[in-house]
């Protein structure tokens, strides 16, 4: 049977804007954060007394022109922190008001299903669990990234004003731990970004377009609907496929 194209609404306007606004802002926050971190770059990965990695090697700093720019880094960081926070705030507010959070927040089954999604993505398993807008792994990832963003704001404030916001600093486990969490979250964003880009490439054009245009194009077989039992069985009414209701 011939298929017909239909427009399937996917991402609301607010989600698309906040997503794309966040992208450069987060980039600037990570970059300016590195300018700041350089001034006291004490973190290493150490196991059993052996240092495996130092954040960051000199070649890395030099390639990105990071050294000796602490004051500049702070000036950028303390301007763009406002945009980062406000954009995240609008996003969360929108998902709550619109009800989109239902599509985003992990469900009880999500944690089990996420493994199946990963196995499917790695071509180990043929079938992926059924999903709505987001699959189980996406629900977990996209909620985690918001929690991480909130964590960055909170730990950031704790490092920024450890005396005035002493209770935030206490909540983060003290000045040192707050700085470590702030740093590790940043590594988390970079990791998220890499996986995210790979997934977007694998998912293809239709999916990518939906984050800009808001919709996907779906090829569907025309639905045949039998309208009621009272009608004689031969009388079939063919209807146009319905558009998804706008969210």
């Amino acid at each position: 049977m011939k298929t017909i194209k239909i427009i399937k609404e996917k991402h609301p306007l607010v989600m698309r804007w906040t997503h794309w606004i966040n992208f450069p802002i987060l980039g600037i926050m990570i970059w300016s954060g590195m300018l700041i971190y350089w001034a006291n770059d004490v973190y290493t990965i150490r196991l059993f007394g052996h240092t495996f990695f130092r954040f960051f090697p000199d070649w890395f700093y030099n390639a990105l022109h990071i050294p000796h720019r602490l004051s500049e880094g702070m000036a950028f960081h303390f301007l763009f922190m406002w945009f980062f926070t406000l954009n995240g705030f609008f996003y969360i507010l929108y998902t709550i008001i619109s009800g989109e959070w239902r599509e985003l927040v992990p469900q009880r089954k999500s944690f089990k299903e996420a493994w199946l999604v990963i196995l499917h993505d790695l071509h180990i398993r043929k079938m992926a669990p059924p999903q709505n807008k987001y699959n189980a792994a996406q629900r977990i990832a996209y909620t985690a990234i918001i929690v991480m963003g909130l964590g960055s704001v909170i730990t950031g404030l704790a490092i920024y004003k450890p005396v005035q916001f002493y209770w935030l600093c206490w909540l983060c486990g003290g000045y040192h731990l707050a700085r470590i969490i702030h740093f590790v979250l940043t590594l988390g964003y970079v990791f998220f970004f890499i996986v995210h880009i790979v997934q977007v490439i694998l998912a293809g054009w239709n999916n990518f377009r939906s984050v800009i245009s808001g919709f996907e194009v779906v090829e569907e077989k025309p639905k045949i609907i039998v309208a009621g039992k009272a009608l004689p069985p031969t009388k079939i009414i063919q209807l146009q496929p319905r558009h998804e209701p706008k969210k």
Partner: protein
Amino acid sequence: MNLKNKKVKKELTVDQKINRRNFISFATFFVAGSTAVGGWKWLYNSPLEKTEITGGAHKPLRRALNKTELFFRNFFSNNHEVKTYPKSMAVKQIRVNSDVGINDEGFKPDLWQLNVITGLNQALKISIDEIKALPKTEIIYDFKCVEGWDQIQHWAGLRFVDFVEHFKLTELAKKQYIGMETPNGEYYIGLDRESALHPQTILAYEMNDQPISLEHGAPLRLIIPVKYGIKNLKRIGTISFSDKRPRDYWAELGYDYYSGL
């Protein structure tokens, strides 16, 4: 009315809808994206401020720093005190990070006097013994450097509020800012009044129960826990009061003037 020119609005086909919406959204995306890139280039290449009280920062970023300061000053309170620690946690070797302003040879601490500017061509000269005769306050707290390191240090001296009260500077201290400089004038800081008068701000003359060493600013230095280390001036030579922001060494080099914690 020419009815023939009035086209009957036909329902768009699915393909037309797809094309139209793609065009609008991608055009918006590229316009917004280009604007963002342009905006970033403008900011990144924006001119540096002229060095006056502050310097070294891109002009728009300095404006942002100053506005951000105003916002966060709302949260300042004398009731917000820096966390203190038991003496056993204080480091034995206090880190020396800089000798700006105190590296001139031949400085004689014995001849030192504190110079408090009280008016035009008027100054109060105070000796270290006068200061040491007043009640001593100890503080063991986590000293924080703008670079990102911190250290639990043990200092003792005269609280700045007590100093102001004893030397009858209360009226002068109603001015919005307090400036401090080293005797040679090479390092200088500006403090907002409320931070200077915070109950934990100390004119220190002892560290780890000993007189402070030259490299830590003997005979008298500032310990101000509500600020980064850059505001903790060593070897105070002059103190002045003003309603305008006094010049500040690190603010002239691109750092935030307030630098409050």
